[in-house]
């Protein structure tokens, strides 16, 4: 447990298990107690206000245009109709592909950090991972737009289109700027990688040494130990890390706004430009008025529900993992 808390990212993402605390008897409640309580109530008010205000501002859309927002395809500024289907599908496409990329690379990275890197370098690696996570998303977006997008345009897109099979899947947008849903997925994958690695590394590192040694002593190879003992033991926590990374990916805003192309089309060919919920809010909010703002707020409500749901599930999974390990 103490090892988990040493990692500031992990501690912030997951928090600590509640352990005790005390309630002073009513007689000894002083001004200090009420000061703390006032702070807590203020925080509760801010949180309720946060959810309430956004929901309240989106109410006109939910009352009159809920169907259009959830299933409509076009976004016609400034008068509507405002269809959100393109943003919803875009969010799922980009974040799921990003997740697949990040989980494949991230799981390998975590295993390599725990089982290949000598113990004394681990702190250095942990610091590097934290620094990667600290790079603001706008910088990833900038890098994606000015470095990766031209490279996609001149190299990757023609290469993918030279294969008929890949062309059928990814589509051939012809002259575009290189910004596309695929690029957004790649940049997102790079961005959520540190979050996933930080948590999955911890989850893997706390698998009890006894289990690993028992398995080694039976003649298992290193990979057999990892596949047969470490990963199954850490499974629930790894799912937690995955869900948390997915939550991160769905909420990512400016990077996607810069590299996805910012076009509100329902698009399953990944080389075409698209957008996501968060990116679309960032892109059009500045010029919107009245009903359009309400529609954007409604998109915000969708994003909030998605994100809160994912992060509650992931926290529940990681907490279950800790309980499982406490039993071993």
């Amino acid at each position: 447990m103490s090892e988990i808390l040493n990692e500031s990212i992990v501690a912030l993402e997951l928090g600590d298990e509640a352990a005790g605390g005390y309630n002073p008897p009513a007689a000894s409640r002083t001004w200090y107690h009420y000061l703390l309580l006032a702070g807590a109530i203020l925080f509760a008010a801010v949180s309720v206000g946060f959810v309430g205000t956004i929901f309240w501002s989106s109410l006109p859309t939910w009352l009159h245009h809920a169907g259009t927002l959830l299933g409509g395809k076009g976004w016609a500024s400034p008068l509507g109709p405002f269809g959100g289907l393109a943003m919803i599908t875009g969010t799922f496409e980009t974040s799921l592909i990003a997740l697949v990329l990040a989980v494949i690379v991230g799981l390998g990275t975590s295993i390599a950090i725990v089982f290949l890197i000598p113990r004394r370098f681990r702190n250095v690696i942990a610091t590097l991972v934290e620094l990667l996570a600290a790079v603001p998303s706008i910088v990833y977006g900038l890098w994606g737009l000015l470095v990766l997008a031209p490279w996609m345009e001149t190299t990757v897109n023609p290469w993918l289109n030279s294969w008929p099979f890949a062309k059928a899947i990814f589509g051939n947008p012809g002259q575009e700027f290189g910004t596309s849903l695929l690029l957004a997925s790649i940049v997102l994958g790079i961005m959520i990688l540190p979050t996933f690695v930080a948590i999955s590394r911890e989850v893997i590192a706390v698998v009890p040494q006894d289990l690993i040694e028992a398995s080694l002593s039976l003649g298992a190879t290193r990979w057999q130990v990892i596949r047969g003992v470490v990963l199954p033991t850490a499974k629930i926590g790894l799912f937690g890390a995955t869900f948390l990374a997915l939550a991160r990916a769905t909420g990512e805003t400016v990077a996607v706004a810069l590299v996805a192309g910012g076009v509100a089309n329902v698009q399953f060919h990944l080389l075409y430009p698209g957008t996501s919920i968060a990116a679309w809010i960032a892109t059009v909010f500045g010029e919107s008025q009245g009903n359009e703002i309400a529609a954007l707020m409604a998109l915000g409500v969708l994003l909030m529900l998605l994100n809160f749901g994912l992060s509650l599930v992931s926290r529940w999974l990681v907490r279950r993992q800790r309980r499982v390990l406490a039993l071993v």
Partner: protein
Amino acid sequence: MSDMTEIQEPKEVGNEMRGEIRRISSHSRARRLAVSRMMIALCAIALLVSAVPLVMLLYQLFKQGLPVIDKAFFTTLPSTPSLIAPNATGGVSNAIVGTLALTIYASVMAIPVGILVGIYLAETESKLASSLRVIAQTMAGAPSILMGLFAFSFVVRDLNVGFSAIAGSFALAVLMLPVIVISTEIAVRNVPNTLREAGLALGAKPHVISLRVVLPASASGIVTGTILAVSRAVGETAPVMLVIAGGFTNSWKPFDPVSALPLSIYENAKSEWPSLRAQVWGIALVLVVFIFVLSLSARIWASRKQQVKN
């Protein structure tokens, strides 16, 4: 696993055991070793692959960022390039002032409340405390664009403040608050109960124990968490871009529109002018260095205090 079992002679079970191992693992040892080496090598490759973007990103930042940074970059206001003077980008002093102003106002709003709530969560046990804990953890992961929507509807529109630094710093404060709450709670919880009990035994009142014993003992953790929250807020674009309106003057006034470093990156990166797209690397470099210094100092602070404790 914990029971002490008698050590058995290997020869008694040798052949049976061998058969058993064969049965469980149907492949020869050579093949299992080969598979193992291959998979471990793949993991090592994954480690290298995940390092590639960081190296590429930092390389581009320094290679393209350093040349555009000079004295004028920090001290002059931005100007729009024209056909006559395509390289007249000016500096980004408005964004630097704006970012500092936004961060300071947001810290003033968020840090006191965050520390109070953190202590409350650590020191009391109630339904309110446990639900606030869940709320803080959920809010800490909430998409930052939502803080912008909140600040817009509440501060800009409902309170009728308009697009201003105060609205932007409100959004950042909402972003920082849960981070400070969680790290304060962890820091306060890590203070050993024996210290509190010693205070109680001496007859100290709860607030005296909290202020004179627990807070000094947990100060390093609180400071670390607060610096991390600040460094996260400094780089955020989404919450401020909806509410600060990108002012073009060096203004510290809370009710003026201001700019911010992340916002100028966003605007300049989309610009048609090559000179502005070149300048944007300098802004990004300044921002990243600032954030790295903040978060490294938080880490060093935390590890030094850890050593003192041990």
